[in-house]
């Protein structure tokens, strides 16, 4: 009886340890290959056209590949905002678009047209807040997204005219090209000064930002 109990505990223990060790090895391998990939083409992280939130010359840059229709991006918005409040002078956020969902490209254009009217943050927050209403993945209702933007003060007729411009297509194309080259497959994907997260998570992001900020103090 004791014999069998011991075997069972041993087997489960070994299985658990093997799983955790494997997980660590795998994640660090993925992180280092991703790091190398980014190091070779760092120009793909930040483009001239990319929206920057926070101090433009901040030494620590969080790059977020972002899809306005993605629930996790919505959930991470307050997390990132809090991080920026924690280091108001040191951290800036660069938003790159990853229009993975149906209709996302239109909403990205809506956000970009809000930038031309200097209402980027207000519209972004309003559109994200209303995301559960408009962003049904199979059947997005973009009119509701426009309505949310309008509530944030966006001049919709002007925005619609701006959205038709081909420059925005070029912006989207560039972002998609970059995320393909960087092998970004999920949103949100974060890079902090070019370094990817060891594994996805709120704490991992906060730790990486804290690390990069503490490098400045040395």
């Amino acid at each position, binding site marked *: 009886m004791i014999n*069998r*109990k011991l*075997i*069972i505990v041993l*087997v489960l223990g070994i299985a658990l340890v093997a799983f955790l060790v494997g997980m660590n090895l795998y*994640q660090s391998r993925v992180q280092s290959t991703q790091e190398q990939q980014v190091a070779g083409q760092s120009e793909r992280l930040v483009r001239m056209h990319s929206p920057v939130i926070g101090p433009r010359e901040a030494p620590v840059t969080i790059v977020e590949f972002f899809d306005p229709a993605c629930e996790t991006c919505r959930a991470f918005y307050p997390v990132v905002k809090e991080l920026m409040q924690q280091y108001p002078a040191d951290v800036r956020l660069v938003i790159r678009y990853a229009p993975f969902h149906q209709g996302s490209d239109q909403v990205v254009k809506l956000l970009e047209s809000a930038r031309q009217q200097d209402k980027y943050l207000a519209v972004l927050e309003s559109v994200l807040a209303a995301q559960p209403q408009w962003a049904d993945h199979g059947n997005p209702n973009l009119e509701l997204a426009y309505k949310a933007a309008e509530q944030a003060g966006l001049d919709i007729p002007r925005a619609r005219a701006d959205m038709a411009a081909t420059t925005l297509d070029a912006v989207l194309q560039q972002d998609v090209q970059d995320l393909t080259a960087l092998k970004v497959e999920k949103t949100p994907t974060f890079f902090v000064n070019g370094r990817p997260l060891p594994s996805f998570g709120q704490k991992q992001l906060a730790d990486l930002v804290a690390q990069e900020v503490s490098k400045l103090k040395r």
Partner: protein
Amino acid sequence: MNRTLTPLLGAWLVAVAATGSALFIGEVMGMVPCVLCWYQRIAMFPLALLLGMAFYSEDRRGAVYALPLALAGAGVAGYHSFLVAGLVPKAWVPCGAGVSCTDQKLDIVYGIELPWLSLAAFLVITVSLSLYLRRTSK
């Protein structure tokens, strides 16, 4: 430990290893399981619990109940193996939407296709359980 129990322990070890690997591939490596993979998981995950219980309490009936799961899993894994080997016309593939069962990269372990590994695991469990049941039959 009684020697007759060895095949039961063996079957349980295989089930634990297979369950752990499936979870690793799905949760850590982030590969989305296709429909056929899900059916195999449905057969394998309970085996990891069931056979552990049977081994712990030295209960012959546990092996009796586990055997149909192992056979069902072997059936699906066999079909899946034929599918990736190209022996089944693709038109039969039951998963139209979602993740494809044929076109996914399944040879992640040095060219060994995952369905083969799954089939091997189910077959080893089936054989071990049959052996154990024969040894303990009166």
